[in-house]
């Protein structure tokens, strides 16, 4: 009788362990793969060196990729493209599209990290893009169908797009940067922009101006996959004074949140454009604003306040939080991303 009880208990235990194992395996299988796309560069290092591309997301002991992937529990792939070239070129959009395809095929990035479940095996893939990476993704996703104006112009946009579930941009330069206007317009002496992002009017900077004639929206259709938008409003002394409305020191809110109309319109957390007033007629959605500057947005170094914005993701009770409500007192963008999937 006692043996039977023991056998029953052991059987129950085995079932329990198996259930936990199956559950854990299932949860692991449910993990997406995060693909990181960096922003504007003043040299080609991120294109030629994986270490540089990886370090784009690191600041001392702070590591955006580590936090966003929940201490690397989520598989990831870090893209490195030529951030000195215009967003649409082969070494920019083309390279990013090719690397996304590689990632979704299970090929390792330059650091040996790979998505554990390929697209063919049913995997899902999220892109996290910072700064100019936003414009690069706009161009890829807005030219991924044979009916689009610049279909597959510099890379396999259709394959890359098909395999992405959605994109999250942080400080995305969807409408360029007024910093680029200042540098290319000759008024850079008026503003001290972060040299790491905008040093001179190189080709990439020229194509990040606010003029319609260089904007990605002029050369793309609406993105075929959702682009979720988050960005900072922590000013940088010297440069923010030259940007209209709230900004992260390099990119103004009108661009971070992909607003329609003027790229230099003044917005803040209370009135930034909602989801029906975007640069394209579909597939841009607000998440939130954060008290981070353009560097903090990609290096996990500033655990700070987060604010609700119109059409954003935060709920207070059962209804969306009023714009400019403090929704978190200390959360980095990387931490925020880690709770979004």
């Amino acid at each position, binding site marked *: 009788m006692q043996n039977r009880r023991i056998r029953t208990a052991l059987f129950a235990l085995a079932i329990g362990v198996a259930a936990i194992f199956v559950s854990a395996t299932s949860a692991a299988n449910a993990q997406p793969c995060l693909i990181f796309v960096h922003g504007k560069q003043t040299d080609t290092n991120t294109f030629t060196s994986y270490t540089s591309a990886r370090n784009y997301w690191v600041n001392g002991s702070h590591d955006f990729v580590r936090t966003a992937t929940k201490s690397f529990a989520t598989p990831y792939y870090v893209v490195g493209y030529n951030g000195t070239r215009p967003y649409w070129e082969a070494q920019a959009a083309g390279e990013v599209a090719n690397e996304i395809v590689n990632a979704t095929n299970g090929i390792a990035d330059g650091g040996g990290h790979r998505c554990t479940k390929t697209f063919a095996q049913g995997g899902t893939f999220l892109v996290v893009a910072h700064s100019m990476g936003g414009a690069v993704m706009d161009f890829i996703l807005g030219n991924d169908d044979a009916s689009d104006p610049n279909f597959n112009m510099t890379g396999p946009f259709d394959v890359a797009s098909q395999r992405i579930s959605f994109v999250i941009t942080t400080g995305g330069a969807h409408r360029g940067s007024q910093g680029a*206007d200042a540098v290319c317009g000759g008024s850079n002496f008026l503003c001290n922009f972060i040299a790491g992002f905008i040093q001179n009017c190189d080709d990439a900077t020229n194509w990040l101006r*606010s003029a319609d004639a*260089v904007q990605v929206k002029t050369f793309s259709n*609406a993105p075929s996959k959702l682009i979720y938008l988050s960005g900072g409003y922590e000013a940088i002394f010297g440069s923010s004074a030259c940007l209209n409305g709230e900004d992260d020191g390099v990119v103004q809110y009108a661009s971070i949140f992909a607003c329609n109309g003027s790229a230099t319109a003044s917005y803040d957390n209370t009135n930034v454009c909602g989801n029906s007033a975007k640069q394209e007629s579909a597939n841009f959605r607000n998440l939130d604003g954060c008290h981070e500057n353009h560097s903090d947005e990609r290096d996990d170094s500033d655990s700070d306040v987060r604010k609700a914005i119109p059409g954003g993701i935060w709920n*207070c009770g059962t209804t969306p939080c009023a714009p400019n409500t403090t929704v978190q007192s*200390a959360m980095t963008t990387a931490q925020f991303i880690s709770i979004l999937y």
Partner: protein
Amino acid sequence: MNRIEKAASLVALSLLVPSAAAIAQEAYLALDAAKLYREQAAYPPSSRALAAGEVDPIRADRAPSRISLGGPDGAAPALVVWNSAISYEAPKAVDLFASLETAGRKVGALVITGDVLDSSGQASGTVQYRDDGIAPDAAAGDGIWSARWQGGKLAPGTGDTYLVKVLATTEKGEPRQAAGGFLYGKPGARATGRYRDEVRDGSLILSAEVEVLAAGRFHAEGTLYGANGEPLGVAQASADLPKGMAWIELPFYGKMLADRKAEGPFRLGSLALSTVGRMPNVLNDLALDVYVTRAYSATAFTNAPYGDAKLLDTAVRLERSVAEKQ
């Protein structure tokens, strides 16, 4: 990760639990995206319905926007620059505008000039802005300064994007600078003005005849308006065409008309043609209200969802990932 970092990480993670505010639900983005993709899968990528009250996206895309930049430390007044259009067909003149503004109110300027540069940075002329009421300036002394730039003749299918470096001097003698720009080119094809329409497989196919002046890739997009003057939907097409005459078909998927019980005739309210395949694209002038179709019954159009396989696949993957996680 050392022990201190782990401890810090745990503390940080504990702060992730929001007290009063929270994201809508776990895996909200995946579910949100899946839901939207299922809705959007009802139309092919080349065609999209517009919601009631939605603006014509093609006209919105072609509307020129104003660019402003303040002085040192954002000092007022700001220099605001804009054009009469975002692109110009060569050899048409390019009309440029500028004003100095403080809190949206125009203030005086001593002088405003502009340097025009092509995409390689080569100088392409200097313009003097004037506020004297002489064309292209509309009214003397209204604070809107105007200038005209005249480009040269170009071969079909060629063009460039131009930077305009504008320098203004305030009444106090302070400099203000801003960067505008425009597209200028000779399109490789032009619409002849001949159109035709038919119902094919439950969709409205609206075709525009084009004269191709130089072989290349061309993109056309159009907005269809209903009898009540509201835009109903957009369609687009791209094609590689040889020199000569050709037709480009805009396929307005029938569901956009069937669902709204829209009866013809329909109006092609906007038609944007461009020479594409290399950057910058060369944009033809936007054509407005170019064609009215025959009358159609709403029953002529399909109300069946298109079933875009790629979007549905993405939705399934997202939903499965959420289910597995739970």
